[in-house]
């Protein structure tokens, strides 16, 4: 009788896994969705989310000033670590001309992987800038389309002007092991942050 509303409901409700997340960011077409697909145990799903954008070039934007809200598509996937822990990967687009506030998405994230195309580095400036400011552990991963890099990693690091402690690595978004290695670099950063706080 108690379950009359749900004939199929299990009597014992299983405790859900604790979710953790890593953000996969970068410009349009750099391989964010490919990155998520390569490692996710489910085909990447897409959801639409609001993002608050703040006009760039303003150091201390006052509340409610110069903000616009845009709807963006976000791809995500997941990896079950064990019965009690599940990793989510959220692929979020960067945008030209705007900085953005992903606070609701980034809040609680372990870290971020900024995917870059070495031929179009300017596409990932906004992501790098955002994560540097927000203090979230992150790494820059240059996607080696067809196994080649247009620029060396040293050149990429110089061009992006990232902090020396931010790893800049090359990876292949199509290969699971390569994506796992890139995520491990992000997690090393996250671990380092937790252990030195």
């Amino acid at each position, binding site marked *: 009788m108690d379950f009359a509303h749900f004939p199929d409901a299990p009597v014992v409700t299983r405790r*859900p896994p604790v979710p953790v997340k890593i953000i996969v960011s970068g410009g349009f077409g750099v391989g964010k969705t490919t990155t998520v697909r390569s490692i996710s145990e489910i085909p990447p799903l897409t959801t639409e989310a609001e993002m608050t954008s703040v006009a760039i070039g303003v150091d201390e934007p006052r509340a409610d000033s110069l903000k616009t809200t845009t709807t963006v598509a976000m791809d995500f996937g997941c990896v079950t670590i*064990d019965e009690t822990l599940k990793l989510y990967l959220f692929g979020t687009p960067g945008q030209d001309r705007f900085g953005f506030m992903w606070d609701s998405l980034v809040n609680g994230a372990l870290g971020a992987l900024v995917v870059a195309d070495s031929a179009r580095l300017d596409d990932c400036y906004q992501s790098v800038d955002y994560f540097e400011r927000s203090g979230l552990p992150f790494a820059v991963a240059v996607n080696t389309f067809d196994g080649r890099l247009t620029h060396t990693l040293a050149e990429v690091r110089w061009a992006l002007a990232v902090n020396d402690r931010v790893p800049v690595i090359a990876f292949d978004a199509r290969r699971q092991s390569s994506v796992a290695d890139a995520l491990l670099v992000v997690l090393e950063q996250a671990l380092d942050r937790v252990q030195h706080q």
Partner: protein
Amino acid sequence: MNGDGRGTPDPEPIGRIPPYLRVSPSGAAPTGPPNRDTQSASLRPFVLTAGRVNAVDPEIDVETQVTLRPYDPRVGRVPLASLGPEMQAMVALCDQPISVAEISARLRLHLGVTKILVADLRAAGYLDVHVADTLSPVSADTILRVMHGLRALS
């Protein structure tokens, strides 16, 4: 405006349950949103959320896990059939633990709309939303477990 009985609040504390999800004292099914045959996608988001634009539970995150809450006859709740089709679909999806993002994607509902409706279904007694799991800072042990899991993949 202020004299008719329709707007009289219930005397007992009912939390944040929206009016159309409250169990009526007489036990009769409330006149909830009628079942629609139309696709969710054809409705404007503010129609689905009854005009609300912000989730009442800001702590509900994209990765927050949602599960079915076992029915408690002492508390009661509005019949499933009286809920809107989007909410009914949500309840059906939550048979297994599922993230807010996945509910949004599978039902093709905007993430913001999903958060609002999930919060409503929690208030109405249909869903458990495990917000506490995402509120505490991540420990070194958790990070190490994720690293171990990723290494096991390759």
